[in-house]
């Protein structure tokens, strides 16, 4: 995966700075870099977000499709994640180089969203056991400037938040089977409720301290990191230890506290950003070309 090689001295310098709470780019340990979110990057999807955090640049696009719910959860919709590391991010991703990284991120995302009550999957169900929405969330990593996981998690939340899910205005009975009916007007859609959706805060340990939103250099100084999913109410939705490092119990506890604190703020910022985006989308002109009509694509 994308890494930078540092000499021992450079690492020492970085670590020393972190210990004094001044990082190379002048941030303190708990500061995020500046970033921005741009909506409707890809017009032929139901919701797409391009999120940039300093050098890290990710496009998240969601496509809603009609499908059959899983048998074990007959009254829930399905959310699928697919991460794709474009070689534009780094030559190491050429060919199948990025698959390892993509796989890991994909697993973490799906476990964060599937195994917790972060999103009410029932709202994605149209007719139990018959029809539900399948939301395909595709993540394309255009550039990797460190702290990829957090950015992707934010992107996913923003994308799901601004994703337009066509409104099933009712059901019609065909041959004794309820079939959803969709309004032809494509401005009738619902938004997913992401008020509980978590963001992920990755904490690499540089020297003896955990830092937030690490750059590639800082990541290369640390053996391992903790990926902690934090819900808006400050509760932890997932913890994963990545990399080959050992931590002491107290340091993990401390880092979880820290992540909870940071995560709440991030969530706040993100969610009112999402609301802004929704408003702007409402005012924005009719997207062109018109999206494919969901009524037809029953296979």
């Amino acid at each position: 995966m994308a890494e930078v090689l540092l000499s021992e001295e450079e690492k020492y310098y970085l670590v020393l700075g972190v210990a004094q709470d001044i990082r190379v780019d002048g941030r303190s340990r708990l500061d995020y870099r500046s970033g921005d979110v741009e909506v409707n990057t890809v017009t032929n999807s139901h919701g797409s977000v391009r999120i940039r955090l300093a050098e890290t640049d990710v496009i998240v696009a969601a496509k809603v499709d009609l499908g059959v719910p899983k048998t074990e959860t007959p009254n829930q919709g399905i959310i699928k994640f697919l991460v794709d590391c474009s070689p534009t991010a780094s030559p190491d991703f050429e060919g199948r180089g990025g698959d390892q990284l993509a796989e890991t991120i994909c697993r973490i995302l799906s476990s964060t969203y599937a195994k917790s009550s972060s999103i009410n999957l029932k709202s994605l169900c149209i007719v139990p056991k018959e029809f539900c929405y399948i939301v395909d969330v595709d993540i394309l990593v255009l550039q990797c400037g460190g702290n990829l996981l957090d950015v992707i998690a934010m992107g996913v939340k923003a994308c799901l938040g601004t994703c337009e899910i066509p409104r099933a205005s009712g059901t019609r009975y065909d041959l004794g089977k309820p079939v959803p009916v969709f309004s032809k007007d494509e401005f009738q859609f619902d938004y997913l409720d992401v008020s509980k959706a978590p963001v992920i805060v990755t904490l690499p340990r540089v020297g003896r301290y955990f830092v937030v939103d690490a750059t590639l250099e800082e990541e290369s100084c640390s053996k391992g990191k903790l990926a902690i999913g934090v819900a808006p109410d400050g509760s932890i939705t997932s913890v994963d230890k990545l990399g080959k490092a050992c931590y002491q119990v107290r340091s993990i506890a401390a880092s979880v506290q820290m992540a909870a604190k940071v995560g709440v703020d991030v969530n706040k910022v993100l969610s009112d950003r999402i609301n802004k985006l929704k408003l702007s989308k409402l005012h924005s002109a009719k997207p062109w070309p018109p999206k494919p009509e969901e009524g037809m694509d029953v296979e």
Partner: protein
Amino acid sequence: MKPKTIANCTRSLVKGGAKNGIRLGARGIHEFRTAKISFGNSVGSCEAVLLPGTRVFAQASAAIGEPSDSRPGEGAFTISVWVSPAATGEMVGSSEKPSAIARTLERMFKENRAVDLESLCIKFGELAWILRVDVHVIEMNGCLQDTAALAVLGALLTFQRPQAEIDVNTDELVVLPLAECTPVELHLFHLPAVMSFALCDEILLAEPCQEEEDILPGKLLVGINDSKELCHLHLTHPIEQELLLEATKLAQAQCLDRLNMLKGLVEEVKTQREVPIYKRPQGPRATGTVLSLSALETSSRNRSEKKPSIKYLSPLITASDINMLEELCIL
């Protein structure tokens, strides 16, 4: 085997020769290679030779399967290319050569819809003929695409499949054995062919041999069908517009008489075949063209039911029949 590295003397010979209109094979600059086409005993097998020393074999076959979800009203059509190690000195299993040929063939036969796939549909969304063509490069001495295209075309033209249809009242797949029906031919909308040129600044060399292809910088592929429509263009070297137009003219002329030769041969083969051939009426079929809600209902209803089972009509059916049948389906 031939030496892999090209000698400088040969290089200079070819390049110098191209300028004064001399070629290795002692051919004229715009003189195309002579093609030889022969058909195998089994239906839809064709071998095309482009003298000197390029030999490609193509075998068409069809089986009954499910159509793709994106095109439920059509049969499927796949082309796969194998370059045998005997042809080249070393193993080129996964090199770009086979895939390049396959791409060219796909573009010409599949994306330009040379084959009427809708006529291959048996039951909308559920059953269709899966047509596949295996192309084997046996000897190679340049001009692979040209030869392969010829071979595939020959294979498709001489291919026959048994009739298969859905019994209306008992919703079952019925495959008539050849004894009881006339085998159906494929219906081709147009007959494409490719001509390749080697480009050496300001000069076109028609259908170069291997050494010329390796030595000369550029290559131009022109695909033209019998109704004088361009169906494929590929270029790997800067070229003047006039030269390009000239190339297409040459290609058109050559491709027309090559196709005529092919048609003639195909006619002979068909007359030789003892089974009388049932001619489909021209024009696309009505089946499976419209995507209507009623079609949706039926499909959704039938999905719930079990798959249609194969039933043979002939009352007394022998093992040989079954074998023949399977031959024709799985062949």
